[in-house]
Structures are given as C-alpha cells and as structure tokens.
C-alpha cells in the first residue's frame, strides 16, 4: 500500500466554556487505510477530523504525525491534506474545472501539467464533459464528485471527508455511497471520513472507530464490530441489536415474556444483546418466549416488526420474505443461544 | 504577507475608521457642555447653560420634528401595511412596477423631489405654509422603507400557505388580513416603524426646501444654528439631536435584525 501514515498522539480538544469535545486520544491510520469515524452528533468525530486537517489545534500535549513528520503546528494550507466538506464548499465563482484545478493553481502549477492532472482526476471521478459547467448547474451527486476531485487533485498526503453523503437525499445516498467506496479504494490514499450512518461506515471503511462522548469506544473492521462488539453502545449503535434485560439465574434469563436459555455458564454478564435478524418467529402455542406485534413495516426485501411484552424495551425483529405476522398477532420467539452477544 | 501582519493592518484600519467617526462626535458633545470652547473644557469648565439656551431658542423645532415623525409613522402604516399585503398577495408584473414606482424616492435625490412638490403645490398657500407640506415629503421618502420591511416579513413567513389555511377554515379576506397577516407581520411593522421615525427625525434634504420660517424641524434648526449661532450653542443643539437619534437608531437596528432572523433556527 502507498500513502502516508497518520498518527494522533494524546490529542484532546477543550472548547471555551470547558466543553470537552475530545478526550485524550491515540490513533494510527496505516498508509492507504480508509478509516471511518462513526458516532452520533456531538461525539467528537468532527472535532477529531478538524484536528487532523489543521482547522483546530489540539490541547497542548497532543501531537499529529504524518509519517514521521510532526505537523501539529503546521497550518492547514501547508499540511498537504485534501478535504471534502459536508456542504462541499465548492467555489461558486469558478467552473468545475477551475474548482478542481484550484489546489494546483495556488501551488504554482500551470499549463499542460495542471490540465493533464485535472483531466485525469476528473475522468477518474466520472466528471468527463462537465469541465465548463457552473457549480449551480450540477446535481447533488456531481457536486460531491467535484468536491472529491478537487480534494485529491493536488495529491494530498491524507484525504479527509466530513459527512460526504449527508447533503444528498436518501434515494441518491445508497448509490453514491457504493460509488464513493469504489473511487476511494481506487485512489489507494490514506483517508479518514466522518459519518453518523453505520451502513455508510460499513460500506466504505476498512476499519471503523466508533465514538461516543469524546472517546473511541471500539476500533475494528466492520465485520468484527458487528460480530463482536466490545461495549453495549457499539452493540446497539452499530448493529441495532436488542438489549435483553431480565433476571439471570443458572444460565436462564427470566424476561417479561418468558424464559430464555442462554447457555451462558457462571456469572451473569453485564450486557446481553440479540441482533434483529437472529430472532425467529414461531407459533405462540408452547413457545417459551412470547410477545405481541405492535408495529410492522414492510420494506420489500425484508419486514421489520416491533414486538412488545418481551422485555422492557420493545424488541425489533427483521424477517426475510413477506409472510410475516400482522399487527396485534401474538407470536412466539425463538432466540438461539449461540447468537447471543454477551460481555 | 503573514497572518500577523494582515491582522495588524485590518485592526489598524478598523480603529482608524472608528476614530474618524467617533472623534468629531465627541468633540461636538464636549463643545456643547463647555463654558467656552476656545479656552477649552478644562480651562473654562462644564455647563448645561447652552443646552438650556437651545431649549429656549429651538424647543419648538424639537416638538415639531417629533410630531411630524409620529404623523409620518401613522400615515406610512395606514398606506404601507395594506400595500405590502396587497403586493404579497398579488405578486406579478403590475405589483413589481407599483413597488418600483413608490420606491423612486429612494433613488432620486431629495432635492429633486422637493423641487417637484414645490412647483406643483407651492401655490396652494394653506398647504404650502403648514407642516402638512413637510409631512407629505417625509411620507414620500419613508414609505418605501415601511413597505419593504413589512413585505420582507410576509415573504419569509410564507403568508400564502397561512392565508390558504385560514381560508380553508372559512375566514373572509378581512378576517385573514386582521387575524393572520397583521399579527405575523408585527416584527416587520416594528422595524419599519422605527426606521420611519428615525429617518423622519433626521431628514434634511427635502425639508430644507419645503420648510417655512414657521415650520422648522430639528435638522433645519440645526442648519440655522450652524450658520448663525456660536459654536457652543450649535454643539449643544447637536447634542440634543444625538440624544434623540442614537437610541432610535439602536432600536431600529435591533428591530431590523430581529425581523430578518424570522424563520431561521435560533
């Protein structure tokens, strides 16, 4: 892999009024790695990205390294990063071509060298034929690709993306997410992107750092995060898993809607979760765990059920196919012991 | 140029501009309360004698200006608020032309407007010699501000939908105007009203041409005192003007900002 290694050492950020946006954090992004910073709003992910960019300085003691170079005090314009902004921040007074070429222009690169690079990047980002368009003539997806092309044209050491898909409407987002994943992988450039959408993070990132309240809760590859969450926050935020809370006794969990054999030996774990798609619906007669369907959303490829009376919070269940029970139906629930997540 | 040099230059320009605007105003305020300006405030001392003399000589202009400003407010409200409502309800070519036309006093110098009024109505003595003549000039000049201020609020609150909502509930035209449009336009009316009063009290270009010795307003009185009175009295008179206009201006800016921030998340 080519690219720059990015390191944060003990980076924290305290804003005026003593708001701790980011607690002291260490983080290494390997050359060519695509890291997703995932978390709810206010978790510190954008602050961390802006520290990497040089738009915020970390509290004293924090350090940012690009390979072995300490860039902590280097202002953004000399840091050689590429950044895609949430609003895209395309310059409205310049054409597409001028936007993409701007980073080369301010570096004093002109003539055919600039034109060649601009053309190369534009065709890589599928912007052929749009060179002379004005920014306000572009669709949302085109704007996003112009923002990306502009950021990568000067061959930055690190590419930073702030919620690159959030400005698009939902219908477009899924297509462009997959497209962005392909383009980013093709660049083989160290990249960090911020998102609050777990499917976005999973589709694009090599590894994901899940953040909450100014800390990284867990950093792992998407499948590891999903299969083996280390904290209850990761389990519920990333997988949308259901928390099962009840009385634990001899490997059995006593819930409002019945009893569940957990196969867990010894002490009661702190948290027990079950993923939505691991629950099976059975006949209520004779089932050891029962509940009532209070919500049903048919989504084509699958159906989402909300079931009450099982434990404190309503249980969310995802079913394949269309022959799901109706609202008001009493259902039995089969929760396989080996699908439980507990820690 | 380094970031620091750029900062220093910008800071210096800002401070110089502040000094340029503030220093003469402070000189004027000090002169108005100095016993003898040529000896200096330290040598001769502080007095309110000049303010007292201004009150004796010119209090009529102050009352007249306040009266005209108030009258101007009433008339611009009566003409301007319904007009803004009509312009919003019927946005079209004709409405734009009407709006353009009544906004002409914003782009034509007051002197030219005054000459036009004088030549058409100057011979109707009862009108020419009364303060109504000045009032007409002030309404002409301030009306566009009232209309624009109210119109701006109407377009940000999406009056169209509110009106349709009220109509679907059975409200008549008059009820919709009274119950929906007026209450929602209040921030714009307030901003417009303060602008009208502030501008009316400070208006000189038109008033100078339209006034008679018996219908002097505050700024006309000021011009008179600058030409014929000693510096201390002129300054004391200016001080009185500042005391009236600066709070009004502050209120006007506050109300305009408030009216402009309607519909934006705070």
């Amino acid at each position: 892999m080519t690219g720059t290694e990015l390191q944060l050492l003990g980076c924290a950020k305290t804003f005026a009024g003593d708001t701790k946006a980011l607690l002291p954090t260490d983080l290494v992004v390997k050359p060519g790695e695509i890291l997703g910073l995932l978390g709810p709003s206010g978790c510190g992910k954008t602050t961390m990205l802006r520290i990497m960019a040089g738009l915020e300085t970390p509290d004293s003691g924090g350090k940012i390294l690009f390979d072995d170079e300490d860039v902590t005090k280097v202002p953004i314009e000399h840091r050689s990063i590429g950044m895609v902004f949430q609003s895209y921040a395309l310059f409205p007074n310049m054409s597409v071509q001028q936007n993409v070429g701007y980073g080369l222009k301010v570096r004093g690169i002109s003539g055919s060298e600039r034109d060649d690079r601009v053309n190369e990047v534009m065709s890589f980002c599928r912007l052929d034929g749009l060179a002379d368009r004005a920014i306000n003539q572009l669709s949302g997806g085109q704007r996003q690709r112009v923002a990306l092309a502009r950021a990568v044209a000067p061959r930055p050491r690190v590419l930073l993306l702030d919620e690159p898909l959030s400005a698009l409407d939902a219908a477009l987002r899924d297509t462009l997410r997959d497209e962005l994943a392909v383009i980013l992988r093709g660049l083989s450039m160290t990249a960090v992107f911020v998102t609050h959408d777990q499917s976005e993070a999973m589709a694009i990132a090599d590894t994901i750092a899940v953040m909450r309240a100014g800390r990284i809760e867990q950093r792992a590859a998407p499948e590891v995060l999903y299969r083996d969450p280390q904290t209850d926050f990761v389990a519920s935020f990333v997988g949308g898993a259901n928390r099962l809370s009840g009385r634990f006794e001899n490997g059995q969990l006593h819930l409002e809607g019945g009893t569940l054999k957990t196969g867990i030996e010894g002490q009661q774990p702190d948290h027990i979760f079950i993923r939505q798609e691991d629950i099976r619906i059975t006949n209520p007669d004779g089932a050891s765990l029962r509940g009532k369907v209070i919500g049903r959303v048919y989504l084509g490829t699958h159906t989402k059920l909300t079931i009450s009376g099982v434990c404190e919070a309503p249980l969310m269940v995802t079913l394949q196919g269309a022959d799901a029970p109706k609202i008001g139906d009493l259902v039995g629930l089969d929760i396989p012991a080996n699908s439980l997540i507990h820690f | 140029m380094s970031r620091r040099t750029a900062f220093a230059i910008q800071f210096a320009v800002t401070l110089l501009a502040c000094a340029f605007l503030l220093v003469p105003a402070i000189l004027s305020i000090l002169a108005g309360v100095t016993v003898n300006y040529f000896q200096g405030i330290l040598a001769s001392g502080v007095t309110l004698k000049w303010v007292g003399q201004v009150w004796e000589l010119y209090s009529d202009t102050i009352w007249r200006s306040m009266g005209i400003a108030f009258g101007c407010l009433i008339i611009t409200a009566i003409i301007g608020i319904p007009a803004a409502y009509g312009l919003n309800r019927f946005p079209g070519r004709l409405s734009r032309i009407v709006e353009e036309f009544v906004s002409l006093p914003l782009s034509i110098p007051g002197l030219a407007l005054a000459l036009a009024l004088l030549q058409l109505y100057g011979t109707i003595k009862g009108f020419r010699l009364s303060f109504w003549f000045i009032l007409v000039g002030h309404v002409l000049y301030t009306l566009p501000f009232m209309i624009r201020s109210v119109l701006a609020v109407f377009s940000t609150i999406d009056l169209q939908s509110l009106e349709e909502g009220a109509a679907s509930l059975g409200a008549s035209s008059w009820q919709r105007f009274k119950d929906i449009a007026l209450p929602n336009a209040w921030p714009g009316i307030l901003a417009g009203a303060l602008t009208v009063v502030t501008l009316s009290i400070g208006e000189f270009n038109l008033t100078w041409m339209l006034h008679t010795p018996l219908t002097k307003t505050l700024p006309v009185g000021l011009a008179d005192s600058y030409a014929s009175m000693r510096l201390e009295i002129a300054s004391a008179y200016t001080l009185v003007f500042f005391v009236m206009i600066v709070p009004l201006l502050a209120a006007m800016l506050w109300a305009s900002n408030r009216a402009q921030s309607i519909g934006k998340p705070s």
Partner: protein
Amino acid sequence: MFVFLCFLPLLIFSLAFLALPLVRLVSASVGGEQGWLIYAEIVSNPRYMQSLLDTVLVSLAVTIAAVLIATTAALFLTHNRFPGRSVLIASLTFPLAFPGVVIGFLIILLGGRQGLVNTISSNIFDTRIVFAYSMIGLFFGYLYFSIPRVLLTVMATAEKLDPALVEAARSLGAAPLQVLRDVTLPGLAPALIASGAIAFATAMGAFGTAFTLATNIDVLPMVIYTEFTLSANIAMASALSVLLGLVTWALLMFARSLTGTSIAASG
C-alpha cells in the same frame, strides 16, 4: 376586491404626491424659452459640466475609499471575536441616521479653522491645516456617512458566507491573500457592488453637507439649489434635477441588475 382596497391609499398618495409632481418637474424644466433645448444647454455650459464632473469625481473617490475601509473593517469584525467587538461595531454604525448638515458640522469641528486638526498642527508643527470648507472637506463628510452603510451591508453578507469555503481554499493550499482574492471577495461581490452604488448615488445627491461646509462648493445639488433660490432659474433648476435624478436612478438600477438584490440610496 379587498386587495384593491389595500392598494387604494397607496395609489392615491403616489399619484398625488409622486407621479404628478414628477411630471410637473419635467414640464417645468422645458417650460422656459429654450424648451427641450435646455438639456443641450446643460451639456454645452462649461460651468454645469464642470460641476457634474466634480460631483462624479468626489462621489467616485468617496465610494472607493468607503468600500476599501468598510470592507477591511467588516471582514476584521466578522472573522475575529474579542471583547469590545460590539463597541467597535456600535462606533462604526452610530452615524447611520445623521443628516448631511450634522455631518458637515462635525467635519468643521475636525478640519475647520477652529477644528481639532488645525489646533494640533498649529500648536505642534506651527502649520495651519484647514480642509473643511472645500472638496476635501466634502470628501470626508461623504466618507463619514458612507462608512456605516457599506459596513453594515458587507458585514451582513460576510456573516452569511459559508465558512467552509475559506477552509476549503486553505485545505487546498491557498495563502491568506489568495483566499481573499479567490473566495472572500468574489463572495462579497454583490454586497460590494450594491453598497458601492448606494454610496455613490447618495454622494451624488447629497446636499446638507455641502450646504453646511460652504456655499461655494460647486457640486450639482448645490448648483441646483443656487439656480432655484438665488437666480430663480426654475427651468434650469428643474432640468438639472431631472438629470441628477435620472443618473442616480439609472445607476442604482444597473447595480441591481448586476447583483439581483434591491438596493436604495438614502440620506
């Protein structure tokens, strides 16, 4: 029907006190012996043309100076937050509603015979500096009332500019001056054109300041005033007024067609 009633007061007022007087002004301008040729006389008369030229030059100088100073201050005040910032903003906007006469008086206090500048220069350098009663005084007077107007317009626009635009330019390697040239100033362009046009049109038509400073400053409004009151040359005063009104109106329309925003002169 109701909407027609809403327009009625406006229509009556504007017809009686705006439309008819303006028609009367134009007809008065051609009511003299020369008729429409009076406009040709203006163009061929060196005194009027000189006065028009002087008015345009002083207005242009004021516009450039006011835009430069006020934009610098506006950007400084938008981009920096510090204690006392609101005091600075207040000190830069309080003259907004001052009439021209008052500003003339303030300029006399600054640059007149007993003004601050002359007092200081006489006492310290033993040289007299008096600038109030001339075109220079007029320039400073117009600058005095233009700075607050331009500042408010530019600040309002600068605050609405997406800060990410500046960050984006910096992330691409642009130095501060390049950011200013390529991002900030183009973003401010509509506000600069609009406020510049207002400053220019206001200076063209202003009367009170020149009136207070001296009666022999031959800017166009003063010439109109003199023609009307002293020479009682009604036709010429009217014709010059029509000319002045057309120039300022056309200028503001032109500026508006460039910016798409509605703008107005005042003062």
